[in-house]
Structures are given as C-alpha cells and as structure tokens.
C-alpha cells in the first residue's frame, strides 16, 4: 500500500525564545514491512542528521536566534507491506535489552493484576498470550483523548481506566516484560480513518520478541498487529526514547503545541 504522509508540528511560545534545540525522531527506516520512497524533514533551524543507539534516524535541530515559534514539517511517501505483524529483519539489537524497566513501565498493583491474568497463556503460547494481553488492555483501559499526559505511567493509566495509544503501549510493555518477554515501544503513523485513533494519525504501539519469529507488533488501541496501514518511525524503551520530538530551549515561557498529521493512501 502506498501511503503519503504530511506531519506538521507547531510550537508557539508566549515570549521569544533565545536558543532552541530539538531531537527529531521523525524519519522512518526501510524494512520488510515498509519501503521509504521519499522523505523530508524541514524547520527554520539547522538540521544535522545522526543515528541513535537503537538505530533510529534522528535530526538535531538548533535555532540560535530569537524566535517565538517553531514549525517542523515532515512529508514523505512510503510503500507498506502486510507481514502479519512480523518484522522479519533482525536489527542486531540484543532482544534481552528490552526487558528493562523505565519509570513509565514500572510494574505496580494495577498493572500486575493485568499481567497475572495473561501470565499463563503467555507461558503456554506466547503469541496468542500476547494477543490476549492486547485485548485485555483494550477492555480495561478505554481510549480517551486527553485523559492522560505525556508523563503518565502505565500504572497510572490502568488505575485511571482510560488513556491514549501511548498509555496502551506502555501498559503492554510493562506486562509483557514482567512475563519475561522482551518488548519495545514503537512510534509511527496509522492510515487515517482506521481504528479508534482516527483523529490523530500519529500513533504508538508495541513490539515483542518471540524466538523463531523475531519482533512481532501488537497494537492494544486497535486490538491487532500492525498491518500495511502502519508506518514505523522509531523504537525505544518507552515514549521518552522514541518520542518524535524532545527539546529544550532558553526563554520562551509557556508553550502551546499543535500537531497535524495526514496519512493518505495514494495510487501506485
């Protein structure tokens, strides 16, 4: 499937900022499930590309003069393939690395209860057990835009009973890792109009490592594995490691951020 993506992130500052720097994890790589045909990232700052430890393509963007807004524009075309959620290629990262806890994915009472519910099914058949976990999360934590913030942990989201795709992914990671399954956070795009999360096409899900299969994707928000409607951008231990933007600035006061993402299917 050929997907055309337009992603605009806009920051507006209350007062002029003097210096800004951002890490932009907004460049997808090619793999068995996707082939990047064209891609561009642009902003008023200086862009320098680099590759992080997980192999993600990153840009560091710096703005060294006074500015009261930052606009990051991403445009590209990607061909995607349905691999039944299996990411066939090996990326050289030791899977075991992704058993690590982070502040977002620390197990707590509520997440533990979920994990215990699927522990046995994961032990007997990992793949279907993880699908059970996917459904369980969707049942227990209703998708609700604005219910949580970027700083909400998995445990907090389960307790709240609602969250967004980021929370779903964190809960999945917390439970899967607790069951001993290496799992990682994926950020990316989802074809508009598909699934629950239709109004924001910027999406997040999880991948778990299954011996024999490799990395397999699970999207609790939409109760499925990734299809050809998904485009992978970056991976990490959690949101912080894969976030499309991490930034810091001098001055600027309070910021207002808005994001517009459009993912459309186009003809080959």
């Amino acid at each position, binding site marked *: 499937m050929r997907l055309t993506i337009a992603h605009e992130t806009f920051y507006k500052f209350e007062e002029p900022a003097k210096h800004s720097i951002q890490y932009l994890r907004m460049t997808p790589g090619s793999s068995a499930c996707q082939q990047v045909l064209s891609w561009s990232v642009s902003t008023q700052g200086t862009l320098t590309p680099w590759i992080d430890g997980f192999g993600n393509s990153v840009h560091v963007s710096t703005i060294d003069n006074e500015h009261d807004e930052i606009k990051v524009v991403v445009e590209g075309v990607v061909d995607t393939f349905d691999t039944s959620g299996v990411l066939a290629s090996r990326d050289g990262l030791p899977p075991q690395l992704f058993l690590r806890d982070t502040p977002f994915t620390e197990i707590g009472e509520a997440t533990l209860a979920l994990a215990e519910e699927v522990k046995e099914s994961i032990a007997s058949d990992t793949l279907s057990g993880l699908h059970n976990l996917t459904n369980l999360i969707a049942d227990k934590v209703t998708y609700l835009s604005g219910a949580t913030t970027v700083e909400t942990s998995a445990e907090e989201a389960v307790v709240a009973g609602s969250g967004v795709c980021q929370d779903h992914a964190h809960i999945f990671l917390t439970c899967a890792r607790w069951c001993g399954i290496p799992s990682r956070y994926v950020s990316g795009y989802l074809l508009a109009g598909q699934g629950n999360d239709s109004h924001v096409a910027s999406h997040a899900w999880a991948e778990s490592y299954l011996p024999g299969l490799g990395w397999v994707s699970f999207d609790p928000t939409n109760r499925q594995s990734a299809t050809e409607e998904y485009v992978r951008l970056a991976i990490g231990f959690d949101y912080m490691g894969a976030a499309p933007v991490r930034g810091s600035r001098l*001055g600027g006061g309070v910021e207002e951020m808005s994001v517009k993402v459009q993912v459309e299917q186009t003809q080959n």
Partner: protein
Amino acid sequence: MTGMLSRTADNLYWLGRYVERAENAARLIDGTYHLSLLPITPEEHGELWRRLFQSNEELELFQNKHPGFDDDSVVEHMVLDPENPSSIVSCMDAARDNTRAARAELTTEISQCMNQTWMDIRGINMDKIHERGIQDFLDLIKERAHLFQGVIYGTMRRGEPFLFWEMGTALERAENTSRLILARSNSFHRAHRRDDGFDFYRWGTFLRSANAYSAYRQIYGDIDPVSVAEMLILNTTIPRSLLACIEDTTDILKTLRREAQCAEMSERLAAEVRSMRLDQVLRSGLENFLHDFRNQVHALSDQIRADFMMVR
C-alpha cells in the same frame, strides 16, 4: 588561549565590583560613625545614618527589622545582615562565590587571600564587634580589600581575566563616587556653605569616604565644596573620580576589543564628563548631571554584557 569563557568574565567583573563595594561600604560607615561621635542632637544623629540608605527599598528592608536609627541597628544591617544584599557580609559572600566560580583563572595566592578573609569574617557577630569595636572590624575589611586587590595586581597575568576584574572595579568606583556626591548634591553650592567646625569636619569625612582626604589637602589645601566636587568628578589623578574611572574603563575596553561598541560608548561618556562646565552644572544642580551619568554607566554595563558575555 584567547577568548575566555563569557561566564568567567562575568564572574571576574562581579568579583571586582563586590570587593570594591564592600570596601566602599566600610569607608562610608566608618566616616559616618566618626561624625556620629560629634556633639550633635539625636535627630541629627539618626539623620546621619539614615542618609546612608541608598534606596527606598533598602530603607524599607531596614525599617521592617529595626525600630530606629541607632548605631547597633545600622551596623547590624549594613555590616552583618545576610538578607541585605549590599551588607558587607553579603558583598564578601558574593565575592567569595565569584572567586570560587572563576577559580581556574585565578592564582593560588588570590584564592588563598579570599579564603583567609572569608574565614576571618564569617565568624563575626554583634558581640564580637562590641568586643573589638566597630572601627577594628571596618579596618579589617578595608585592609583585606586592599590586600586582595594588591594580590591580584601582584600575581595575575595581564590578560583578559585581569582586565574584566579591573573593569568591574573601575565601574563600581564610578557608581560609588557618583552616589556619594549625589547624597550631598545640594550642599555643594557655595550658598549652602556653613562656616563652622562641623561643616569642616563633615567635608573631611566626606573626602575620607572617597579615600581622597589627604590628596585633597595636598592639592587644594583649604576645604571648599566646589574644589571637592571638581576633584571627585574631574581630577584624573584621583583613582575614584568619575572621570578617572571612566577613562580606566575606556582603556580596558579598547585593549579587550578596540572595535567593540561598548568601547566607543565608554569613550563618548569620558569625553562628555571631561568637557563639562562644573560651575554651570553646580548652579543648575548636580543632581541631573549625576543621574544622567549613572544612567549612562548602566547602559554601558549592559552594552559590555552584550559585546562580551554572549548574553542569552
């Protein structure tokens, strides 16, 4: 290594200012204390101290804690109070902090001198001041400030770090002297002259506060307010005169970077002071001139920051 760290340049500049500020405060208190020993009324006594307050904020800070302008309250406030940012102890704290921050650019002797001073000062309290006398403590501050400045002159390489320190010292002097004159600006006019012993004593103290008493006696002899004003504003052989301070600053800035905007600004200010008509200014009131001068000094320090400190 050319081009020192902007932050360190800033630390050295403020080091110069704070040490000089502490020393100025010590001289000012010392002089006022002398005057307060004269046979004067309690009202005059309080008024002497009250005049040391440089701003309404400072006065407010003082009055929140102390009921009246007695010697102890004023000394406590101006010497010891850590909440008063211009108390001697606060100035020395800030000076030590800047010494530590700029430590890598200073000689061991300089750090040692500051540490010794700080160790000697930090145990001081009102009881100790009563025991040894306020004079003794103020002498210690003056001595240590001079020693510290001497150690810098004696051991530091004449490079950028030195120049930023020297400039801080010069600009602080300019501000202090202008403030000193401002505080008495209405008594410079000949018409205000009181020909009695007290007046003589007052002018003597005033000159001592500017560290210029003996110089004045050597150059002018008899005390005359116009000559006092002339000396403190225009005489370039007096290190704390306004013109001397601005000329020093100009020279330093030109050495640092001839084409810097602040160098040009400083030179303009020096020319302005140099060409002033003192008698005219005295007739129309010193205040306007001094206010304008102080505003220009502030603008100059802002420009110095913009030119050298990569202001963020």
